[in-house]
């Protein structure tokens, strides 16, 4: 039901879904201990396609917000909850989309969040 794919295949697979007219339903993320698993859920005519990548703790997953603009909300949510940083995120709230700036721990993950200094205007 959920296909596990390589991390390097992600962008191509997401582009494929986009070109076939699939809608991004959402993303889910699970802390498996060693890795964080990111599951991508798509839908077309009520048929779902789900695939997942695993990314080790401390490494940054790639954002798909350049392909599906609506992904930026869920990616920001995952940043808040799991203390990770997506690369290439179209609008980056840097861990304060849901949470306040003073929060130092990711609720869904044993890791602590290290706040990054904003390097883009208007993204603080």
């Amino acid at each position, binding site marked *: 039901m959920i296909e596990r794919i390589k991390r390097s295949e992600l962008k191509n697979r997401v582009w494929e879904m986009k070109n076939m007219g699939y809608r991004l*339903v*959402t993303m*889910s993320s699970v802390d498996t201990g060693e890795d964080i698993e990111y599951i991508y859920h798509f839908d077309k005519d009520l048929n*779902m396609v789900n695939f997942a990548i695993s990314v080790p703790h401390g490494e940054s997953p790639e954002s798909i917000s350049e392909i599906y*603009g*609506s992904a930026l909300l869920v990616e920001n949510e995952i940043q808040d909850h799991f203390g990770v940083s997506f690369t290439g995120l179209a*609008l980056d709230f840097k861990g304060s*989309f849901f949470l306040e700036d003073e929060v130092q721990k990711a609720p869904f993950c044993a890791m602590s969040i290290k706040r990054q200094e904003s390097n883009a205007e208007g993204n603080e």
Partner: protein
Amino acid sequence: MAPTVIPFGPQHPVLPEPLHLQITVVDEVVSEVLPKLGFVHRGLENLVLKRDIHQMVQVVERVCGICSCIHAHTYCMAIEELMDVQVPPRADYLRIIWGELHRMHSHLLWLGLLADAFGFESLFMQCWKIREKVMDIQEATSGNRVIVSVNVVGGVRRELTPEQCTWILETLEEVEKELLEIKQVFIDDFSVQKRTRGVGILSREEAYESGAVGPTLRGSGVAQDVRQSGYGAYSELDFEPVTEPDGDSYSRAKVRFREVLQSIDLVRQGISRLPQGESRVKVKGWPEGEAISRTEQPRGELMYYIKADGSKHLERMRIRTPTFANIPGMLKMLPGVDLANVPVAVLSIDPCISCTER
């Protein structure tokens, strides 16, 4: 005129719940919008680590009061799939009867709020007056007005007697009659159209592209409704998705208005075909594996992802609520809207913030 940044919310007369939008306007016309969430974030998904799978039914009902029944239904569907539990046919029907009652009262609540947002106080009160009859049905059949708490893993824990079914049908006849009386106002009235037509336009392509769901998607002409997938008893009921083509706030209001009438019809069908027999099976053991379940809430598609490891606690529960999916669409529809119309456009997606933030 230079761009001006205006904070919209988190406390705003038109919003029943806190949502903050940073709106940039040029000459009182919106040019850009940035959302900020987190005012009612409760971390309910994380409670799976502390509550067992049966207790979690009560937790998910509290993700959102207005569509609590459908949250519990969706969660139970996922657990039942993992545990290979076959729910009795009667429970499938009872679940959709209470679910459609929820859709009715949610839409009537929203129609009233919309009327209030554009300053039509008597219409607001008429909608809520009609809604009370639906609330009475929920209270009489479940003991609660809003959080009916009928679903359990394995079926439902309340029954409908033949006398209650007759009374529900009689009450819904009154609801339908009163609704049709205000239809002329909601659909044809000049002032309603003046405040909603052409406000917050979301084209068919934009709606689909942004991942919009429910009446927000169907109000842009896309005929997609998760109930078509036939979960529960829907595969045995006759209905078509309600759509409107224009993609504005008026279209979204018309979709919801027509969906109340559709829900009345679905409850009638459900009661007329209600099978006899058990409404609950005993569930033993704990789930293991991954499951995804989807249902159609009043605001649109609801999705649960569940991961279980065979213990009494789930490993992970992820909830994607419809408002979360409709926010990108809302951000697309707002640029170009007059500042004075922003409350109507925001309200037109029926935002549920406690759902969105969980």
